[in-house]
């Protein structure tokens, strides 16, 4: 079955097509938003870990050899 045959088997009206298109957009858009926020949180966490390790000062201070 090609895509034309597949689409001709769908019983669509302009209103139902609009309803289904909007529902797809809403659900996929929301999923995309969640995944982007997850990515942002992961990046922020990595950045925080980098900052923490680079700012770590030694607990004991010793006199320089020079």
């Amino acid at each position, binding site marked *: 079955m090609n895509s034309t045959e597949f689409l001709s*088997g*769908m*019983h*669509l*009206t302009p*209103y*139902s097509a*609009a*309803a*289904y298109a*909007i*529902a*797809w957009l*809403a*659900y*996929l858009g*929301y*999923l995309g938003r*969640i*995944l982007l*926020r*997850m990515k942002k*949180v*992961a990046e*922020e*966490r990595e950045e*925080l870990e980098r*900052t*923490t390790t680079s700012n770590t000062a030694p607990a004991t201070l010793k006199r320089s050899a020079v």
Partner: protein
Amino acid sequence: MANSEKANSDVEPSMKKLAPISLLLIVALLGITTYLALAVAPTEQTMGDVQRIFYYHVPSGWVAFLCFFINFVASGVYLWKRSASSDALAAASAEVGVVFCTVLLITGPLWARPVWGIWWTWDARLTTTLVLWLIYVSYLVLRRFSAGGQTQVLAAAFAIFGFADVPIVYMSIRWFRTQHPSPVMGGGQNSGLDPAMAHVFLANLAAFTLMGIVFLVLRYKLQMSEHGLESAHAQMALKGIA
């Protein structure tokens, strides 16, 4: 702090695995439900093909109700135990519920216009549903913009009172004679669905429930992760002061 860091480190690796799986699952569920509704379900006698909106409209409403119920229970648990996980579940379920309720409120007028000749009417079912949507949007706004340490408590109390509208929405078409049709399933002797339609409807209901669970799991994990990050930032700031 140690607990939230541990919880966060547990969440991070599973997020990376969940992202592609959830994307595939949601696309597959949307594809299957659309195919069942538009190609498999029989055409309705009176309304014709536009009635096929029903297979997205009603399951969206069902998932919205389910999410608001989870929000109600999680808010109660938060007020009782003050646990971060119940607060995260409450926030996640409210947001997912609002998304599904938005689809419900958009697909409804798109069905009403060709059938009733109007986009909207202020009847009991439509009005109480719009109020329900506004209640949970207000809940999310409260969580987002309220300052101070009592936000979670305020939000939980708000959610418990807000949930009172859910049974009113459900019962509105039973209590009042409205423009909105009477319930098709469980609506008395003169109600019912053709068996071929009922099969598609139940399949879509199950698929939408699964879709709602996927969104809820992802959103809950995100909420917990953001909470862990906030705690880590706070810890950093305290170390800086010390």
